[in-house]
């Protein structure tokens, strides 16, 4: 059975073209699916269990999508709710949904799919040999798991299908693969499995697979032999090149994509322009494999305080690296004398913005910039220690001279206080899969009526 999936944008919170969304709704889709997250912004969201996007932006866009759902009369699904897809961010998204249902006068059945993993479950699975490393994987044992603030498993199509089977109008899913929310319904209705996953991968970033990436809205038709993709904004065209190139995006292997229960192989995919706007794709294959779900986890790797000084005097700009080396050695002595801390207890990383701030030792260009920003990053076991080190080094970062003979220089601090406490530094600590006999064994669904 052919299945029409409307994808409003690559992620909720990034915006979409309203006229394009209206055009998509008018095309009578069978489901509206959108992604709510990614690891792309770093480990903070997962570590802290909070959304990266503002509540206001999320609510404003969700309002339009809830209205679109009501108009289309089809399910609305969001995957990886609240950037990281922890239980806390699913409930955050649910609270927004409750508010909007009241404001819009909508009465909806909401299924929440939870992906957070109790530490005990993963610890037991690890002991039973059911947690397998991917390449490259950080070492993991029970002690490492005990340090993680959040662990999630990435749901696939099966779990989304189970949530849809509750008769939900809205599915708020925790961590899912980027593609699962789009592939779930076509797969459930017997469309071509290779096409379902391939079309989902092409559409998961919204209009990024078109000639106008910021327009957002994409419509995909799945059937028994392939899929057809079209951008809903008038200014956006899907071409064989724009569509096929998207398999490269944020994907280490452009021909394979691993999902729960197998992998997609697009080696044999053929991309054909149906007209100036639409592309037809056939020939991708789904290769079934063992049922595993990917795990993500984050742990606290310390607490940070930062300081930023700008060097403008040409002599200091020219000798910035030597200056930070001398300063660093001097500060180690001061910290040992005054705080009794050894270099094993903390780190101070001075990064030279204007020299190699972004690439570090990989940088192979050099020049004489007008000024250099010296970003000092202090990392220690507690915020109190990091903040104390920040205060201790503050006057030296401001005044430390290149040589002992000269008058004390004063560099530019852009604000007061000069130090900023960053809070916890989180680290991704899992790149593993969990083997499951039953896809729902690591997930749970909660159904409620909202706004009734």
């Amino acid at each position: 059975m052919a299945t029409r999936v409307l994808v409003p944008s690559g992620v909720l919170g990034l915006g979409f073209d309203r006229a394009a969304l209206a055009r998509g709704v008018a095309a009578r889709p069978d489901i509206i699916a959108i992604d709510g997250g990614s690891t792309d912004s770093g480990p903070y969201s997962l570590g802290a269990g909070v959304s990266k996007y503002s509540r206001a932006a999320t609510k404003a866009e969700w309002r339009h999508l809830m209205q679109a759902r009501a108009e289309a009369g089809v399910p609305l699904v969001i995957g990886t709710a609240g950037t990281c897809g922890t239980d806390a961010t699913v409930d955050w998204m649910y609270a927004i949904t409750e508010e909007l249902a009241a404001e819009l006068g909508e009465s909806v059945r909401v299924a929440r799919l939870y992906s957070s993993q109790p530490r005990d479950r993963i610890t037991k699975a690890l002991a039973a040999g059911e947690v397998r490393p991917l390449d490259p994987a950080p070492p993991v044992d029970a002690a490492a798991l005990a340090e993680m603030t959040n662990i999630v498993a990435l749901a696939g199509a099966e779990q989304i299908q189970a949530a849809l089977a509750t008769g939900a109008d809205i599915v708020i899913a925790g961590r899912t693969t980027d593609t699962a929310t789009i592939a779930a319904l076509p797969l459930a209705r017997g469309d071509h499995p290779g096409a379902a996953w391939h079309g989902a991968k092409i559409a998961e970033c919204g209009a990024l697979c078109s000639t106008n990436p910021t327009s957002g809205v994409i419509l995909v038709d799945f059937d028994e032999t392939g899929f057809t993709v079209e951008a809903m904004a008038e200014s956006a065209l899907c071409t064989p090149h724009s569509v096929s190139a998207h398999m490269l995006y944020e994907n280490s292997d452009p021909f394979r994509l691993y999902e729960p229960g197998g992998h997609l192989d697009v080696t044999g995919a053929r991309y054909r322009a149906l007209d100036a706007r639409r592309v037809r794709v056939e020939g991708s294959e789904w290769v079934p494999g063992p049922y595993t779900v990917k795990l993500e986890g984050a742990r606290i790797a310390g607490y940070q305080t930062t300081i930023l000084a700008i060097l403008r005097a040409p002599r200091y700009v020219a000798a910035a690296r030597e200056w930070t080396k001398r300063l660093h050695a001097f500060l180690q002595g001061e910290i040992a004398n005054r705080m009794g801390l050894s270099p094993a207890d903390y780190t101070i990383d001075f990064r030279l913005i204007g020299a190699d701030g972004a690439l570090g030792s990989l940088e192979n260009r050099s020049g004489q910039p007008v000024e250099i920003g010296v970003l000092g990053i202090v990392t220690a076991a507690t915020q109190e220690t990091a903040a104390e080190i920040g205060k201790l080094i503050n006057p030296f970062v401001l005044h430390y001279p290149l040589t002992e003979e000269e008058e004390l220089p004063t560099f530019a601090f852009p604000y007061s206080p000069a130090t900023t406490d960053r809070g916890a530094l989180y680290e991704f600590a899992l790149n593993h899969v969990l083997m499951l006999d039953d896809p729902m064994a690591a997930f749970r669904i909660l159904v409620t009526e909202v706004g009734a």
Partner: protein
Amino acid sequence: MKLGDLVLKVRSKNAGPFWLTVDIFCGDADRFARVSAALDTGEVARLFATPRQTLKRFDIEGLSVVKFSLPRPVIQGSREDRDMHGAQWAHLLEEIEV
């Protein structure tokens, strides 16, 4: 000639927190043939300070794209990471002579 002046676009991004991927969009078959022949995998590995055997290379003629993927030298967002989204590796590659 620098690679960045020859091709349409060089893009690098994370492929999950543990991998980095760099796509060279050559623009057409002629430039693809030139880039594909001129790019030495060992030289790219040295540029990224990664072991040659961990650098994956895909020469995709149909798209006129040469793609490299490598394990991230430091895990995304860990203490030593300097580029959360991994987008600056592209510039290293843009600046090599072809």
